[in-house]
């Protein structure tokens, strides 16, 4: 079977895109921890529910950034294919 250079790069790009999405583990764990602590905070002090929720959402959205960088790298590898040019 003959594999041309372009096809090889395409396949490796797909593997790299899959590997890049491992970055999603970290934000997932972090967001889960944040949500758990927010839940316990609401349990202890139900009056502060709206404040706790908005703080939690803000922190989670900031923590999500690293995962999104991984997604961007995967997206670039799959659809822009910088290595083929």
């Amino acid at each position, binding site marked *: 079977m003959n594999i041309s250079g372009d096809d090889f790069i*395409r396949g490796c790009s*797909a593997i790299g895109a899959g590997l890049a999405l491992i970055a999603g583990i970290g934000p997932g764990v972090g967001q889960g921890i944040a949500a758990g602590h927010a839940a316990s905070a609401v349990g202890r002090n139900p009056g502060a529910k709206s404040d706790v929720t*908005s703080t939690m*959402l*803000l922190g989670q*959205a*900031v923590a*999500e*950034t690293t995962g*999104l*960088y991984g*997604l*961007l790298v995967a*997206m670039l590898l*799959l*659809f822009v294919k910088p290595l083929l040019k």
Partner: protein
Amino acid sequence: MGNTALLLSGDVDFMIKGIFSYNCFGNEVWITTTHVCTLIVMLILIGFAVCANRAIKKANTDEAPGAFLNIVELLVDFLDGVINSTMGKNAGKFVNYICTLFLFIFLSNISGILGLRPPTADYGVTFPLGVITFSLITFNKFKHQKVSGVIKGLCDPWVFWIPINLIGDFAVPISLSLRLFANVLSGTVMMALYYGLLPIFVKIGIPAALHIYFDLFSGAIQTYVFCMLTMTYVSDAIGTD
């Protein structure tokens, strides 16, 4: 084996497409879907503003407000509350900018529901927003902390920390804009994959739930986060005095 070589079948379509090009002093400039969608979003916002202005001018203080006026009051109340609780006594100067930012980003994010390609899924739209916030931060820093305060802040623990602090300052607009861009883009790509790759019978009804999550929920959260971070950075730059 074209651009869609990696996709199994169907036509997955979420890229920015050029509509027509023209010559601008020898350079080829493209009008893309982003421009058109931004224009539509702006037209909707202008129409909303004109209607709200007219409703407020005609409002009679002796009667209960109508449905439209109620919605406008709810919106202004919500935005005022958020900005006042975050910025405290500095709120008055920034209400205009934050409200504009909020309405534009929110409508851009949820315009996927209207069948448009969200303008914020283009890095050329979110990066200028980040740069505007960055200039606001820097301007307020120099205005309120003076040059000596800025230099003191740059060599915070020690003089050799200057490059790291500089990188930290310049990372603010990039991370702000990339966060918004990547979130909206991921929603757009998900919807395009769903519409492009699956057989016809799962495309009835189910996409409504996906639209609610990817467009409405995620868009609203990201709008809130962008405005919140802008307010936090600016009040940080102003300082406590």
